[in-house]
């Protein structure tokens, strides 16, 4: 690699990193506790989630209360509200019903009710406050809504470019060094450089996957809108000209669910999007079915059921970009392989924080020495460069 080539890659690495580092530090710091979201919720103030025996709410096991009964219970407590979502659990009989003033209300105006489908009790409301919720908002969009989300997506993409350029620079830097070299006693700068290189290269694959899936997740809203205006509109084409179905004419959800189960006996629902919301047409219950194996569990298949009559309109595989989005969620959250996977996720998150921090120190430390000095450092594996 010639000095000019190294120089170009060095500049790409410096600038892509500098622009995204502050945001990446925030994302890694907020992401760390979010990895253990479920565990922290269990320990702090959400005891309802602990001891709940019974069949999972996503099943149709005997003994579970009808969905219509559950919804009626919530609506009786929330006069003037309409249902927007119903979501199920694969382990416990707990489920949630989300209500809002209007079918197309903003997420901020929605209320999430937690219910027990085995006992038929309302167990409470999902809290929109608290530290975890704050961290999640900060991590997702910095309280700026869609623009914030897209901005963080862009930062994630710059982070990926800095990973690629960093990996390229690893080659000339390590040319004369053995893998894992840590020169800790010669100078603070050499120590930082070696740790930056080692932690960066061993965590490269993980950082790339978590970074890129974060970028895809940041694009969730436009992807979903694309699906809603494209595939979903296509599935419900025959309803196109009709006025929206008012909530007073919504029919039985159990009947709709039964129609879907008859068509796809093995699949359990993950959630239902009500008419007029972000996940359905203006006339349908959109019942999102999970796959039957662990690999396909995350990929949802929408079944569109006429909300008034309870008759199945269409059921179709998600397009490729929605399948990609489905896999990007677990791969970003690290919540799909038990507690050991979460602990490894946390360790690699700490590695990333360290790489970001040492990167910042390395840039800051010899800023006045100029680009040439830095390029020569990369070229020689950090050998001290005589002053010019």
């Amino acid at each position, binding site marked *: 690699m010639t000095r000019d080539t190294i120089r170009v890659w060095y500049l790409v690495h410096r600038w892509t990193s500098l622009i995204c580092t502050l945001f990446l530090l925030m994302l890694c710091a907020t992401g760390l506790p979010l990895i253990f979201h479920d565990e922290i919720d269990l320990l702090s103030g959400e005891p309802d989630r602990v001891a709940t025996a019974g069949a999972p709410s996503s099943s149709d096991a005997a003994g579970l209360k009808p969905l219509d009964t559950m919804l009626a219970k919530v609506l009786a407590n929330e006069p003037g509200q309409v249902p927007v979502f119903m979501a199920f659990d694969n382990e416990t009989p707990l489920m949630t019903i989300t209500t809002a003033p209007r079918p197309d209300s903003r997420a901020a105006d929605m209320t999430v009710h937690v219910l027990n489908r085995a006992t038929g009790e309302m167990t409470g409301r999902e809290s929109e406050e608290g530290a975890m919720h704050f961290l999640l908002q900060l991590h997702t969009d910095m309280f700026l809504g869609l623009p914030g989300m897209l901005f963080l997506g862009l930062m994630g993409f710059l982070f990926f470019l800095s990973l690629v350029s960093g990996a390229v620079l690893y080659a000339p830097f390590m040319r004369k060094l053995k893998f894992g070299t840590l020169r800790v006693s010669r100078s603070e700068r050499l120590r930082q450089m070696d740790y930056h290189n080692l932690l960066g290269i061993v965590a490269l694959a993980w950082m790339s996957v978590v970074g890129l899936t974060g970028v895809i997740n940041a694009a969730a809203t436009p992807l979903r809108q694309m699906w809603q205006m494209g595939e979903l509109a296509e599935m419900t084409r025959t309803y196109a000209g009709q006025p929206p179905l008012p909530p007073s004419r919504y029919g039985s959800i159990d009947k709709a669910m039964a129609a879907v189960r008859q068509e796809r006996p093995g699949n359990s629902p993950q959630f239902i999007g009500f008419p007029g919301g972000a996940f359905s047409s203006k006339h349908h219950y959109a019942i999102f079915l999970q796959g039957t194996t662990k690999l396909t569990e995350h990929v949802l298949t929408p079944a569109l059921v006429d909300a008034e009559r309870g008759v199945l309109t269409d059921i179709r595989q998600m397009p490729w970009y929605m399948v990609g989005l489905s896999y990007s969620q677990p*791969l970003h959250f690290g919540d799909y392989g038990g507690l050991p996977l979460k602990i490894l996720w946390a360790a690699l998150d700490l590695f990333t924080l360290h790489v970001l921090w040492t990167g910042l120190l390395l840039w800051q430390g010899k800023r006045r020495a100029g680009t040439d000095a830095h390029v020569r450092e990369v070229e020689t594996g950090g050998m001290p460069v005589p002053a010019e």
Partner: protein
Amino acid sequence: MTGRRENRVRSAGAVFAAPLVIGVLSLFGLVAALAGEGPADWLSWAALALPVLAVAWAMQRRRS
């Protein structure tokens, strides 16, 4: 102590051999837990522990 060996120039293949093994196994680990349970989870943990173990090893053996 190994001054002469350290100065020998290594090829790109040699430089990236260990990182490539760790990277490919990490990707395998990320997918394994997604695809299965039980043994697949164990394989996933083992594969994703590699980056952490590599650093621990380097701190023991390659510190100077």
